[in-house]
C-alpha cells in the first residue's frame, strides 16, 4: 500500500513539477530554448440525478486528473541539437502527453468495492510522437490520434482511433477518450495541381497496434452498459423452448477471436487526398482496418444435462471504409459553412437473430455494409436580444445511417432483462435476458449546438447542446456554463438531460431512448474545476 502511494506521489510530482516554479508557470513553461511544457490539474465531480433532480442524486464520479504535455524542438533550421546539419529535414520535434487520473469516488462509496478498483486509476503516456518536416513531406511517428472527417462526435470517418467509453461514455471531449495508437502518418503537400488547390496526400499505417473500443459492463460502475428492462435484477436463467435452465449452473466458453493487440498481421492503413476545388474543400478517404466493436459468433448453445453450455467467439472482422467529405463557405446569402461527410463501410459485425431465416451460418453473426451521410451547417449568428457584442456559434448536423444489406433479423446491443415466463406463467425469482432490439434499416439523428460568451472580457461561456433521434424520439440536452476565473482557474458547470417523447424503441445513439428510461435515467450535474498552466 505504501509502495503504491509512493508510486502515485512520484507520478503526480512529475506531472505537477512545472507548478513548483510559479514564476514560470503562468503560461507554457519554457525550459531552455527548446523545451516547452503545459498542462492542467482537474477535478471533475458528477452527481447522477436520475428522474428527480436533487432528490435522488448520487455522487458517481470524483475524477481527479493531472495532465502534462511537452514539446522538444530538437531540430530547427536543418540543424539538429544545435550541432549538426540534417540536410533536407528542416524541423523536427518530439511531443508527449501524459495523464494521471484517480477517481476518489472509489474511496468514498462502499458500493464500488466490488469493482476491485477497475477504473479507479490511470497512469499513461497517452501520446508520444516525433514530427519531421522535410518539405514537401512531413512525417509523424509514434503514438497519436488521427481525426478525419467533418462530423463532430459521431463515428463515420473518425474511426481510426477507438474510444474509451468506460469512465463517462462519449460525453467527454473525444480528444480525451480516443485511444491513441502507434502509427506512422506521412503527408505529401502537393499544393496546386490542375484545377485543385491546397492539395495533399496523407497516408497512415498502423503496423500492429489494434485495440477495440472499451466499454464497461461492471455494475455499479455508472457508465457500465447494462441493457434495458429490469435494472435491479440480473438474468439468472435461460429459456430453451419451455425449459428454464439456471444460468448459475452454466458453462460459457469464450473464444477470443479478436485480433491480438500486437501482431504485424494486424496492419491497418489508409489514405486521404484533400484539396480545394472552386472554393469547395473536399477529401477522398479510404481506411482498411478492423471493426472496433466486436461481434459474437455463437458456436453452440445447448442444455447438457442440467447445465446450459455455450461456446461463443468474439470477433473483429476486417472493415473497409470509403469516405468523401466536402465543405463550402457560402459568404453572401446564408453566411454559413456547409459540411458534408459520407461513408460506406463494409464488413461491420452485426448480431442476427439466432436460428432465424437469415441466420444462414447458424451462429447469430453476420457482417454488413453501412452507409452514412452527414450534412452540417455552421453559422456565426447575431441574436442581439441575447448578446449585443458577440455572435452565437451555431452548429447543426443531420445524420442518416443506412444498413445497405439489411435483414429484419438484425439485432442491436440492447438486451432486456425480463421475468421468466414458462407456459404463460411468470416463474418467481427467475429472470432471462432477451434481445428484442430490432435494428432499423435507416437511422437518423439531428444535433444542434449554440455557444457564445458574455462578460466584458468574454469570460462566461455558455453552451447549449440538443440531440434528437426522430425514430425513437430519444433526446439529449446539455446546458453548460464555463467561467474563466483567471488565467489559471477555469470552472465549468454542466447539466446533462436525457429524455424521450414517447414509445419504447431503442436508439443506436445512446440518447434518451436508453439513458432516459426509468431506472436507467442518468441525468447528470457535473462540476469541473481546472488549474491550467
Amino acid at each position, binding site marked *: 500500500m505504501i509502495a503504491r502511494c509512493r508510486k502515485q506521489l512520484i507520478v503526480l510530482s512529475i506531472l505537477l513539477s512545472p507548478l513548483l516554479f510559479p514564476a514560470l508557470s503562468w503560461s507554457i513553461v519554457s525550459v531552455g530554448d527548446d523545451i516547452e511544457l503545459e498542462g492542467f490539474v482537474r477535478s471533475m465531480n458528477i452527481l447522477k440525478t436520475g428522474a428527480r433532480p436533487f432528490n435522488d442524486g448520487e455522487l458517481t464520479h470524483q475524477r481527479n486528473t493531472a495532465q502534462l504535455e511537452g514539446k522538444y524542438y530538437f531540430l530547427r533550421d536543418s540543424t539538429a541539437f544545435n550541432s549538426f546539419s540534417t540536410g533536407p529535414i528542416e524541423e523536427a520535434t518530439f511531443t508527449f*502527453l501524459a495523464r494521471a487520473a484517480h477517481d476518489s469516488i472509489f474511496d468514498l462509496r462502499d458500493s464500488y468495492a466490488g469493482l476491485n478498483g477497475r477504473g479507479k486509476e490511470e497512469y499513461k503516456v497517452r501520446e508520444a510522437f516525433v514530427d519531421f518536416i522535410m518539405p514537401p513531406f512531413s512525417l509523424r511517428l509514434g503514438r497519436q490520434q488521427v481525426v478525419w472527417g467533418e462530423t463532430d462526435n459521431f463515428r463515420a470517418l473518425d474511426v481510426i482511433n477507438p474510444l474509451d467509453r468506460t469512465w463517462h461514455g462519449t460525453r467527454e471531449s473525444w480528444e480525451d477518450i480516443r485511444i491513441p495508437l502507434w502509427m506512422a502518418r506521412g*503527408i505529401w503537400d502537393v499544393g496546386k495541381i490542375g484545377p485543385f488547390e491546397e492539395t495533399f496526400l496523407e497516408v497512415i499505417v498502423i503496423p500492429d497496434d489494434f485495440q477495440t473500443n472499451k466499454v464497461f459492463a461492471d455494475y455499479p460502475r455508472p457508465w457500465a452498459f447494462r441493457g434495458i428492462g429490469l435494472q435491479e435484477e440480473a438474468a439468472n436463467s435461460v429459456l430453451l423452448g419451455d425449459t428454464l435452465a439456471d444460468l448459475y449452473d452454466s458453462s460459457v466458453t469464450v473464444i477470443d477471436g479478436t485480433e491480438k493487440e500486437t501482431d504485424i498481421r494486424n496492419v491497418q492503413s489508409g489514405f486521404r487526398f484533400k484539396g480545394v476545388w472552386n472554393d469547395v474543400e473536399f477529401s477522398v478517404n479510404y481506411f482498411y482496418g478492423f471493426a472496433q466493436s466486436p461481434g459474437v459468433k455463437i458456436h453452440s448453445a445447448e442444455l447438457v444435462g442440467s447445465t446450459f453450455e455455450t461456446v461463443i467467439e468474439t470477433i473483429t472482422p476486417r472493415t473497409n471504409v470509403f469516405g468523401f467529405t466536402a465543405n463550402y463557405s457560402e459568404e453572401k446569402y446564408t453566411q454559413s459553412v456547409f459540411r458534408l461527410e459520407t461513408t460506406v463501410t463494409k464488413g461491420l459485425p452485426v448480431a442476427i437473430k439466432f436460428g432465424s431465416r437469415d441466420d444462414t451460418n447458424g451462429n447469430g453473426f453476420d457482417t454488413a455494409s453501412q452507409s452514412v451521410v452527414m450534412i452540417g451547417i*455552421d453559422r456565426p449568428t447575431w441574436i442581439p436580444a441575447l448578446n449585443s457584442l458577440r455572435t452565437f456559434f451555431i452548429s447543426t448536423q443531420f445524420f442518416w445511417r443506412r444498413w445497405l444489406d439489411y435483414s429484419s433479423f438484425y439485432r442491436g446491443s440492447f438486451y432486456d432483462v425480463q421475468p421468466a415466463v414458462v407456459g404463460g406463467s411468470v416463474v418467481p425469482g427467475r429472470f432471462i435476458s432477451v434481445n428484442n432490439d430490432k435494428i432499423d434499416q435507416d437511422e437518423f439523428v439531428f444535433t444542434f449546438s449554440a455557444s457564445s460568451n458574455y462578460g*466584458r*472580457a468574454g469570460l462566461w461561456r455558455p453552451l447549449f447542446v440538443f440531440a434528437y433521434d426522430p425514430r425513437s424520439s430519444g433526446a439529449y440536452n446539455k446546458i453548460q456554463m464555463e467561467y*474563466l476565473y483567471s488565467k489559471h482557474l477555469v470552472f465549468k458547470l454542466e447539466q446533462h438531460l436525457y429524455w424521450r417523447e414517447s414509445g419504447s424503441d431503442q436508439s443506436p445513439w445512446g440518447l434518451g431512448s436508453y439513458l432516459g428510461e426509468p431506472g436507467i435515467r442518468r441525468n447528470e450535474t457535473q462540476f469541473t474545476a481546472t488549474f491550467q498552466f
Partner: protein
Amino acid sequence: MKNLTVHSSEHPAPFHRLLTSAFVLTAAALLWMPAQVIAEDQSYQALRDWIDNPPAENYATPGKHYTLSDRKAVLEALIPQTAWKYYFFEGMDMEVTETGHYPAPDDWGKKMTPTADYKLDDKGVLVGFTGGGTPYPEISEDDPMAGQKAVWNMLWRPGSNDYNMPMMVWLRSEDGTLDREMEFISVNSQFAHGDHSLVSGYEEVKSKQLFEFRSPRDMAGAKNLTIKYVDHYKENSGWLYMPAQRKPRKVLSSERTGELMGMDMIREDSMGFGGKVYENKFTYLGKRKLLATVNVSDNPEIGGPSNWVPDKARWEVRENHVVLIEPRADNHPYSYRIVFIDVETNWTSWMFAFDKRDDQLFRLNQHFTKYSETFDTEPPSQAPYVKQDFSKSVGHQVFLHLGQTDINAKKPHATITHCFVNKKAFSAARAKQFYSLRNMVSGRR
C-alpha cells in the same frame, strides 16, 4: 429681481441664505459644466468638430515632455477629442519628438503593377493591382475617390506583411483589473509583389497569415490560417484548428462585426479598417495633424487610471488623411467610422467607431509603430517567451507594428496588445508548405 427681493424679505434669513447658496452653486456649475461636457463629449459630431478646427500654428515643441498641465494649451488640439477621456490623466508623460521622415524601401514602386493596369471601379474597389508599391502616391483632396484611395494605400502599405510577430494581450476593465492575458504568434507573408508572386502559381493570393495561440492553456495550440486575395471581391479563406478537435474547420470570413475571443475589437477594426470597401461609403475629410506613437523607442509602457493607454511613450506630430467610413448594412453596429492614416507611411494612427444607436463612441484603436532602421540602434523589447534577432529587420525600411490599444467605450473595457515583431523572409518552397491546409491538419497537440 424686485419680486425676488420682496419674496425673500417675506422669508426667514436661513431660507434666504439657502437660496443664495443655491444661486452661487448653480452659477458655478454653469460656468464649469461646458468645459466638462466638451471634455466628456465622445459623440461623432464632437470628433467632426475637432477635425474641422485645427489649431492655427500652436503645435507641440519637439523634444519636450508634455503633462496634464499642457492639455489645454497644446494637447487638446493634437489628440482627437473622443480620446481625451482616456489619454489625459494625472501623471501622464508624452514625449514629443521631431517629426521624422521615413523613406520606403528602395525598390518600393519599381516592381509594381503599371498604373494603366489598375483602377478603382464604381464601388471604389481597387481592381488589377498586385502590389509592389503604393497604388496612389498622390491623393488630391478634391478627388471624389480620395477616401478610398487613402484606404487602399493603407491596405497595400509597405511593411504590412512578412513578419514573425509574437504578441501579448491584456484585457482590462475600467478599474484596471486584468481580466485575461493571452499570448499568440502571428506569422505573415506577402505573396503579391507586383511583378511576381512569392510562390509562383499563387498569383491570386495577396497574403497569407498563420496565427497560433500559446496561452492560456484553454486556447493553446488553436491556430488560424487566413488567405487574402488580390481580388478584393473574393472573400478571404480561413481555417481554424482546435486541439480539442484535432482537425481544421472551415470558418466563415464574411462575419466581421462580432468581438473576437472576448477582446475589444472586431475583425473589421483591424488596422482601423479591415473590411470590404464595397460594403461601405467613403468620404474624404481632408488632412489633419495630430499626435501619433510613430517610431516609438520600445513597446510603450501602459498607463492611465485604467492602464489602457500608452504612457511615457514617444509621439510625433504627424499629418494624417482623415477618412469617414459609413457601413452600408442596416444591421452594422457602427454608424460612422473615422480613420486617421499617416500621409507619409500609410499606417493607421487612430480609428474611432460610433454606435449606430446613439452616435457615441463605441470603439477606438490607436497604434504603436517602429521604423525598421532603428531596430539595431534602439531595439524594442523581446517577447517574454521567445528571443529574436532584431538585426534581421534592419535594412527593410518599413514600419513594424509594435502594438495597439483597443477601447470599447460602451462596456467599458480595453484590450492592450504588445507585438514583438521581427521581419521574416520565407523561401517560396517554405511559404508554400507553411501556409497550407496540410499544415492545419495537426497542431501543437
